[in-house]
């Protein structure tokens, strides 16, 4: 079986997004967990000034999280531009986002700065290059905390050194169906990789979507870690999943088609949908779209994964939805998008 060719978004039959991020802290400033209110404010002030002055992207938006409504914060989480932890925090936290949403820099999350570049599909090399460019620009304006032995200093020992974390969000339904996922998880553990859910740290997998990221940030160069990810880890994940899909197609073709078509039918006719149920069904339909069993673009499914989240629905309705209204609007949105 050959993967669907999509020149614009490479390997998006399996890879939803790739991300590179850095943890950085300012020299001579206490870390967030030991800083006073005023010290946190000073870090925010310094960061805001730099974010708006340095040419980090064509257009950079700065947001003070204290001034955003809980709904706006939730929207940023659902778009993976800030973490849940950052959204739930209290004072003096901000984020700089490029208007194309590829770059986001969280200020006063766990570290003073968390710089990330996120792209659709398998584009780790591009995200890494852009991240390094942004880091070099920031260094012209900021004095980073750095130690000769331990490199860039971080709040948590797991981020010391390069402070770099690569992560790939992959859709692995066939490995789950063929019960091969546990093997992948064991292999990932041996390679010191973390396997997490849709929203990263502390989240469960929804819709057979997993985030795989490196755990070691010290003792290897940024390029070495990136090369291993680009040339070994991501291709291996893609190969495993494609092989599992081939096995399913050969051995249980009718069963597989049945599952996909049932999911598609439910999504096309449901009047009320919970988010977890919708994610599970969309996962099967996504597999069907990747295998050519349903006439639907992968991009439509991936857009739906985001659009059906609670904050996006509330935003669309321009009001606070009751639980039942939320289920109804979600089902309507899915029906409309699938029928287009």
């Amino acid at each position, binding site marked *: 079986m050959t993967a669907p060719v999509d020149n614009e978004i490479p390997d998006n039959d399996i890879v939803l997004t790739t991300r590179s991020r850095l943890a950085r802290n300012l020299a001579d400033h206490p870390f967030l967990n030991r800083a006073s209110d005023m010290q946190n404010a000073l870090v925010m002030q310094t960061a805001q000034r730099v974010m708006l002055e340095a040419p980090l992207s064509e257009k950079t938006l700065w947001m003070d999280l204290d001034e955003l409504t809980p709904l706006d914060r939730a929207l940023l989480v659902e778009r993976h531009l800030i973490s849940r932890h950052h959204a739930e925090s209290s004072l003096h936290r901000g984020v700089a986002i490029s208007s194309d949403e590829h770059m986001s820099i969280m200020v006063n999350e766990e570290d003073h700065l968390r710089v990330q570049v996120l792209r659709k599909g398998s584009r780790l090399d591009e995200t890494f290059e852009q991240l390094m460019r942004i880091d070099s620009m920031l260094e*012209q304006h900021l*004095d980073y905390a750095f*130690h000769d*032995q331990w490199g860039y200093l971080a709040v*948590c*020992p797991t981020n010391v050194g390069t402070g770099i974390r690569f992560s790939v969000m992959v859709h692995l339904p066939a490995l789950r169906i063929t019960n091969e996922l546990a093997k992948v998880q064991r292999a990932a553990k041996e390679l010191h990789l973390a396997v997490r859910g849709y929203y990263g740290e502390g989240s469960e997998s929804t819709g057979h979507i997993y985030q795989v990221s490196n755990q070691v940030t010290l003792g290897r160069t940024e390029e070495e870690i990136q090369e291993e990810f680009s040339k070994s880890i991501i291709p291996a994940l893609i190969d495993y999943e494609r092989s599992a899909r081939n096995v399913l197609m050969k051995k249980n073709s009718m069963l597989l088609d049945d599952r996909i078509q049932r999911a598609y039918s439910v999504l096309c006719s449901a009047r009320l949908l919970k988010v977890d149920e919708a994610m599970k069904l969309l996962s099967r339909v996504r597999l069907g779209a990747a295998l050519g069993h349903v006439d639907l673009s992968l991009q439509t499914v991936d857009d739906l994964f985001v659009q059906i989240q609670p904050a996006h629905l509330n935003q669309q309705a321009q009001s606070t939805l009751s639980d039942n209204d939320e289920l109804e609007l979600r089902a309507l949105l899915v029906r409309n998008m699938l029928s287009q």
Partner: protein
Amino acid sequence: MKCDLCNKPAVVHEVSITGGKKKEVHLCLEHAQAAGVALPGQQPINKLLTKFVIGQAPKTSGMQCPDCGITFAQIKRANLIGCPGCYNAFQDSLGSLIEHAQYGASSHVGRVPNRKHTPNQFELRARKLMKELDAAVTAEQYERAAVLRDRLDKLSTDVHTEKKDEQVEEPGS
């Protein structure tokens, strides 16, 4: 009865007969402990337990970081470091914590900052004010703290105004 080794009252009395010769030892509390003799009812805990490990408490456990005041015990408990200065203050103990977190890696081999950023006048003044403010709050001098806070706010406003002026002047200059 006095201690055999000093004038303090003896609290431990040991009588032993070896080869028909009686030997008496009377020791005060300090000298008894120095000689490793346990008092009745004061059996050392390690003799009471069948299994025990004597752990060498890290020398840094009670020490505080001179910059942020955190102790190593606090760092270990939360797995969160307090400030850049902690890395020097607890160098040895942090080394093993980092190696554990990094699967044995102990040295950075990656990128280094291209250019050490030199703090500008604004940052230097702000840092100085911050330190004074911290000291005032610690000393519960709240009136002084309020004055310092206002100065910090003004400093921030001045910087932004200065930047805007520069931007306005640029085209004609």
